[in-house]
């Protein structure tokens, strides 16, 4: 711990810290552009000049490049240092356009701040300014190259940190520019980070171009609702419209960055068809009437047919408090059980994880710090995009990575791959002798043995998986493998991507309970006569939509609480509008068991853009707020149960009844959150039966999530809807040739998930014997709910689509 003096104040910092970081620890910001905590110091901008007055070095130095040493005396205010900084700002401003009034970065521009702070107020350069042409980079990122100050942050983020290939440095000398070789959509799933890292207005969020100044927007610390990782975000809203999302520093989760789904997928909150008024039997009602009527009907059904007459279904989208309120409604109805996910296999997989995880859960920071990773049945791009970025950072530091997955490898880092379903391999890994499973080829056997040895030798090994492909049996095998690879004093961790932002919390609250298939059986048998769906859409998420549709048709009462215009909501007798995450306070438990709070950014209401019919400034004055009726799910459910509560009371009750959630009491949105103290359940672990295999001559169909278009929230966000990949059927070239199918030719796909005619995509990375589709809302694959694992399918040359 070197101790040094900066501006006459002493500070001790960890060995290896730079003078810039030491100053930061004292609260002194040494102006800088190219330095970024996640990207490191490269010494390009030369702005962070300080004077070192005593110690191993002397004179003017760049604070980001000098390691803090014992006895150093540093001045950030010496005339040489301030003079240097003023000169650098002047150099950078030589060519910078004075278009701040129309620049979206204005008000949150580091260059603006540094120019003012550096004291460069008068322009002395009278020459011509250098100009660049701009590139069209797709629907997310706007480029205005003339504003560039060449800090190289963008390219260090896009290429070095995120592993993108289609963006780089162009040109030399004063004509250095950043962009693509040719204009076109940025291909990286992490392209939006350019907006966050650019210290000025070169890269801005195209989806909100010219929509608002930063000081006019509302924002609050939040947690990303688009997957289970729980990345830290800042949603920004104005005039009751959620405009954009930017990355927040989440040391245990995302670090600084976000994936494009999380960043650009927030428009679901502004969806024009979103339910905004309670509706019962086709009539719009006020809250009191709607709740009164529904309470009466639910109570009557319970009296008449017992507590089992009402089914309760939630999903990983609902907040922890809402899930609890659903459980309390069940208790109020005499003990109706809660089903955690509309997809039964997903439900059982999550419950298996939560029951057995114990202390083995690993978050993104653990993955970044790991020295050996195994990705078994995980497709990060679809299930948890930021997990791939975390793994990449580990690999950049020298970690070994292996992938066991039949799907094509789309990872932003090199890994040893076995193109098979991971189940048999995991089973082998979990056995004490670890002998390779039968049926592997020689190279695969060697690869397996090498990976196993590396995992055993590693100091911080982590197994990564995806609940969708693994299913309950795979999850148990992954857990068993992690336990088998653990030794006293050195655990092998586990990081599993789950279906939704609070899948973990939901399963924690109801570890047992029935799954959706048992619920459907109850409806079909006439035992269950009413169903309350909390932010769950069984029609789109259950693997057998026809069965669900038939079952829903038998119900006497279908109540849907949601903020999305889902297929199930369209069929409901009653729709109760709830708030989106950015419109409420709440908490999610992420995939690794970290409880994180999020705060209300703005109050739900019809955007003024809609009510004002485009007039600017809006000229409609009225005392009420149109469209303000949506309420947090927990509030609606508590009212439905006849016991309205405040959020604080609900959280206190939850903390009391579930000791593992005691952290809720002191939970602060924007804080680090609380890692739950989990013990593996003492219950006997059921031996999950193997899933039915795929017969000879049939292909195994995998329906998975895509980066865009699959996840129910972002699929309903306008900017993302425009970039969702085309519906296609991916086959390995050998299988396609056997079936007589070529690239782009129509094929008819028949499976238990449904039937569709799709163009064929040849995917050389796909293991033979598999067919791969990505579910997309609004297309022929809408019913192909992901989460089912491999199922049998038949493919033949298709007719007209």
């Amino acid at each position, binding site marked *: 711990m070197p101790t040094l003096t900066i501006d006459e104040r002493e500070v001790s910092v960890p060995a290896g810290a730079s003078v810039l970081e030491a100053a930061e620890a004292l609260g002194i910001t040494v102006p800088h552009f190219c330095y970024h905590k996640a990207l490191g110091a490269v010494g390009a901008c030369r702005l962070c000049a300080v004077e070192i007055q005593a110690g191993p070095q002397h004179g003017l130095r760049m604070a980001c490049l000098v390691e803090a040493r014992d006895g150093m005396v540093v001045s950030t205010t010496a005339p040489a240092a301030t003079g240097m900084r003023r*000169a650098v700002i002047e150099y950078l401003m030589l060519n910078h356009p004075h278009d701040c009034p129309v620049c979206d970065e204005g008000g949150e521009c580091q260059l603006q701040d540094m120019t003012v702070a550096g004291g460069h107020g008068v322009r002395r350069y009278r020459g011509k300014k250098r100009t660049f042409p701009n590139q069209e980079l797709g629907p997310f990122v706007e480029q205005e190259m003339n504003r560039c100050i*060449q800090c*190289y942050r963008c390219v260090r983020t896009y290429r070095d940190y995120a592993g993108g290939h289609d963006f780089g440095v162009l040109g*030399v*000398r004063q004509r250095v520019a950043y962009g693509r070789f040719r204009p076109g959509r940025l291909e990286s799933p992490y392209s939006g980070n350019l907006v966050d890292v650019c210290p000025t207005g070169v890269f801005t969020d195209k989806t909100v171009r010219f929509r608002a100044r930063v000081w006019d927007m509302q924002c609050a610390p939040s947690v990303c609702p688009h997957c289970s990782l729980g990345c830290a975000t800042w949603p920004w809203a104005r005039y009751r419209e959620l405009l954009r999302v930017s990355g927040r520093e989440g040391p245990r989760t995302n670090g600084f960055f976000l994936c494009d789904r999380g960043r650009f997928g927030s428009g679901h909150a502004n969806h024009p068809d979103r339910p905004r008024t309670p509706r019962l039997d086709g009539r719009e009602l006020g809250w009191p009437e709607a709740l009164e009527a529904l309470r009466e009907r639910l109570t009557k059904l319970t009296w008449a047919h017992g507590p089992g007459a009402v089914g309760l279904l939630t999903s990983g989208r609902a907040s922890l408090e809402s899930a609890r309120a659903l459980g309390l409604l069940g208790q109020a109805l005499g003990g109706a059980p809660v089903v955690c996910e509309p997809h039964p296999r997903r439900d059982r997989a999550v419950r298996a994880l939560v029951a057995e995880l114990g202390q083995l859960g690993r978050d993104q920071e653990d993955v970044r710090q790991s020295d050996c990773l195994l990705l078994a049945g995980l497709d990060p791009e679809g299930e948890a995009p930021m997990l791939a970025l975390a793994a990449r950072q580990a690999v950049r530091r020298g970690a070994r990575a292996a992938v066991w997955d039949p799907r094509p490898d789309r990872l932003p880092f090199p890994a040893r791959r076995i193109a098979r379903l991971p189940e048999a391999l995991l089973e082998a890994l979990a056995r004490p002798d670890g002998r390779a499973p039968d049926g592997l080829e020689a190279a695969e056997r060697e690869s397996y043995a090498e990976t196993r040895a590396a995992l055993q030798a590693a100091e911080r090994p982590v197994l990564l998986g995806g609940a969708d492909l693994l299913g309950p049996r795979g999850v148990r095998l992954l857990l068993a493998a992690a336990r088998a690879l653990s030794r006293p004093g050195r655990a092998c961790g586990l990081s599993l991507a789950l279906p939704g932002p609070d899948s973990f919390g939901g399963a924690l609250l109801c570890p047992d309970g029935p799954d959706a298939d048992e619920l459907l059986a109850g409806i079909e048998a006439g035992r269950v006569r009413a169903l309350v769906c909390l932010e769950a859409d069984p029609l789109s998420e259950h693997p057998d939509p026809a069965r669900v549709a038939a079952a829903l048709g038998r119900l006497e009462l279908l109540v849907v609480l949601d903020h999305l215009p889902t297929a199930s909501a369209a069929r409901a007798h009653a729709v109760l509008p709830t708030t989106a995450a950015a419109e409420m306070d709440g908490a999610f438990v992420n995939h690794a068991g970290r409880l994180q709070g999020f705060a209300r950014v703005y109050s739900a209401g019809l955007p003024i853009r809609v009510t004002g019919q485009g007039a600017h400034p809006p000229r409609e004055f009225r005392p009420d707020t149109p469209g303000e009726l949506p309420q947090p799910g927990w509030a609606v459910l508590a009212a439905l149960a006849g016991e309205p509560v405040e959020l604080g009371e609900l959280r206190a009750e939850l903390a009391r009844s579930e000791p593992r959630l005691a952290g809720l009491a002191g939970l602060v949105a924007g804080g680090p959150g609380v890692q739950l103290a989990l013990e593996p359940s003492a219950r006997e672990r059921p031996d999950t039966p193997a899933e039915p295999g795929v017969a000879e001559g049939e292909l195994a169909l995998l329906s998975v999530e895509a980066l865009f278009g699959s996840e129910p929230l972002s699929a309903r966000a306008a900017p993302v809807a425009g970039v969702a990949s085309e519906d296609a059927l991916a086959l390995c070239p050998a299988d396609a040739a056997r079936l007589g199918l070529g690239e782009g030719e129509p094929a008819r796909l028949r499976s238990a998930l449904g039937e569709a005619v799709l163009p064929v995509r040849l995917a050389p990375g796909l293991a033979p014997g598999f067919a791969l589709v990505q579910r997309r809302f609004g297309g022929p694959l809408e019913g192909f709910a992901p989460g089912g694992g491999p199922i049998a399918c038949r493919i033949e040359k298709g007719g007209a689509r």
Partner: protein
Amino acid sequence: MSHPQVLFARRRPGQTVSLETYLQEGGYQALGGAVGKQAPAALRKLVLDSGLRGRGGAGFPTGQKWSFFPADAPGPKYLVCNCDEMEPGTYKDRELLVADPHALVEGMALAAYALGVTHGYVFVRYDYEDVFRALERAVAEAHGAGFLGERILGTDFGFELHVHGSAGRYILGEETSLLNGLEGVRPNPRLRPPFPAQRGLFGRPTTVQNVETLCNVPHIALHGAEWFKGLALTPGEAGTKLFGLSGHLNRTECFELPMGVPLREVVEVHGGGVRQGRRFKACLPGGASTPYLTAAHLDVPMDFGNLDRAGSRLGTAGVTVFDERTCMVAATLNLLTFFARESCGWCTPCRDGLPYVCYLLERFERGQAGREELALLKAQPAFINQSFCALAQGAMGPLEGLLRHFEQELLDHVTRGGCPFGGA
């Protein structure tokens, strides 16, 4: 005045020494005498004792650089010859290689032996097609004769040498940029530490040396450290030096002269005096990035120490002479335009500061500058010297020379409202 010729001993006008001639004239004797017979460490010690300093511009003692090199560490290590000779006024390496390419091949093989290196690269300037061809041929000849490749001269020592043609930017002369260029990535300079000796080409220990430096090694190996020191005219210096003459001289050729030869002899004897009988006004003693010397410096011995003390640098010993009719503001602007153009664009002082200096100098030339611009110009070197690599610091050489010796000329531009020499 004739001086002993070492590096140019085999040079014939218009010819390139073939392997046959090279062998006839004592070539590869140094390699034969060292490989398998002399311990690599002894060879390194010899180079250290010889006082050989790098000829690429910085003048870092070669033996000292080699002493930092992990010669005995296992795994691949690299020797790279920097032949990206792009400093304006410098062409000595081209003269040397077109005349005698085997000298470099032998020098590199010897250095590789001393450093425990098995792979070497010669990084050749884009425009040097003649050098590239001469080297490729020499490497093939040496390979065929067993001076390169596996089991050189029947010993366990092997060394493969590759000739690589640059894509052509001045920044590639900076050794870490050169390594990036060799790796095929954007040639921005690298952060140091780690130094190339720890992590260089492809992340492995690497030594980068100038052509002339490496060509001296066989001679040192053959004749010893004391002989090499004795070649210099001034105490504390060692060897001969190739001087590339250019500018307003009657003879602008490349000469091999002893280290410490007075500037006056270079200009008046070897350069044949300033052209058209004009007076000597100033010169760049060691390429475009060294501060000017004036007529007051004509008796300064041209070596590392004496030029440092005279406020300039020996650099590459590319001597560019300016006669009395030269506008030093215009000359400096010309040089700075080159540096601004060749900036890689990595750091602010170089990328944006150098064009700003050009802008200020242009204002002087056009008579648009006042005393405020002079103050601004004077302030620039302190900022630009904080650049990431030596490119912009080198660019400050002529500017600092201008401000030190020719401030009156700048003031004349201000008072006359334009260039007194009729420029611009």
